[in-house]
């Protein structure tokens, strides 16, 4: 009964939705407002005035850098939220009623071997993505996610203790805030050097400097993102 009602409701919702998206400017046409209004300037002048040949990197780190500043804050919020929900416990908390499936299943040798074989390559790939986000697809956050995935599979293979030993707790606290702090430092230096928060060097002949700043922010986001995602994974895996 509830299902039938929901389906009916969804059909009622879907028809106006479909009607409205059908009226949108034609998909794929170069004459749509998104394609004629702001993006032409980004596509034409991006490499000269923003410092990266990959225009997406220009947009996320330079033209709309403040969004990314907010984005790294969102992921940091998520870490703080996970810690606030999972760490510690109230007095009198009863243990779980159901038995959580134990994680004692040994990892198969094949998987273990393949992961050990691939992890250096994955690490190199992540570093490449981090450093060359301005000329090829990728950038800080992508590389952070790849690094985090690497940490996660490593944790599965060699166990939590050894994986955590790679990044001691003290350093980890600093790494977790690396991304927002990088933004803060770059933003404030932009404020003092060029008059606006997150402003980059813009004059001719200084473009290598803008590119360098993009790479610095990329490293900050990559390291910070990886630390945050890995910490979330570890915190969720804790037997709190």
């Amino acid at each position, binding site marked *: 009964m509830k299902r039938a009602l929901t389906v009916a409701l969804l059909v009622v919702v879907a028809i106006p939705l479909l009607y409205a998206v059908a009226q949108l400017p034609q998909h794929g046409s170069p004459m749509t407002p998104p394609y004629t209004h702001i993006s032409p300037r980004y596509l034409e002048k991006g490499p000269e005035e923003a410092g990266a040949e*990959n225009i*997406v*990197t220009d947009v996320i780190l330079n033209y709309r850098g403040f969004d990314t500043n907010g984005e790294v804050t969102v992921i940091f919020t998520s870490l703080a939220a996970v810690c606030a929900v999972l760490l510690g416990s109230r007095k009198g908390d009863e243990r779980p009623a*159901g038995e*959580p*499936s134990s*994680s004692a299943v040994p990892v198969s040798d094949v998987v273990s071997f393949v992961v050990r074989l691939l992890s250096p390559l994955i690490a190199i790939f992540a570093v490449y*993505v981090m450093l060359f986000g301005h000329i090829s*697809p*990728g*950038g800080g*956050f*992508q590389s952070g*996610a*790849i690094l*985090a*995935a690497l940490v*996660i599979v490593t944790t599965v293979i060699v166990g939590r203790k050894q994986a955590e030993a790679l990044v001691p707790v003290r350093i980890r606290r600093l790494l977790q805030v690396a991304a927002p702090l990088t933004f803060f430092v770059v933003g404030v230096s932009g404020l003092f050097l060029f008059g606006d928060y997150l402003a980059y060097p813009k004059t001719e002949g200084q473009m290598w400097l803008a590119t360098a700043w993009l790479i610095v922010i990329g490293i900050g986001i990559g390291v910070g993102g990886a630390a945050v*995602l890995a910490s*979330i*994974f570890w915190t*969720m*895996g804790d037997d709190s």
Partner: protein
Amino acid sequence: MSRAFDITLLLLLIACALAVIQTKDLLGAVVIFSTYSLIMCLIWQHRGAPDVAMTEAAVGAGVTSALFLVAISKTVRKEK
């Protein structure tokens, strides 16, 4: 040709979404969901959005699935 490829991918995407809903085994649902993410990632790569595709592959199919797996291992595997 390209159009046919597009439509096939979109249909696969919808099929995966429906399969996720139908699967009672949560582990299976998560695996299908990460397949769904990978197909999405293919579509985006095909549409000229490699940055988004890479992010979706690493985050949507990778990290998100890992988080789901942790949650399942800490709770239950079967939907009632």
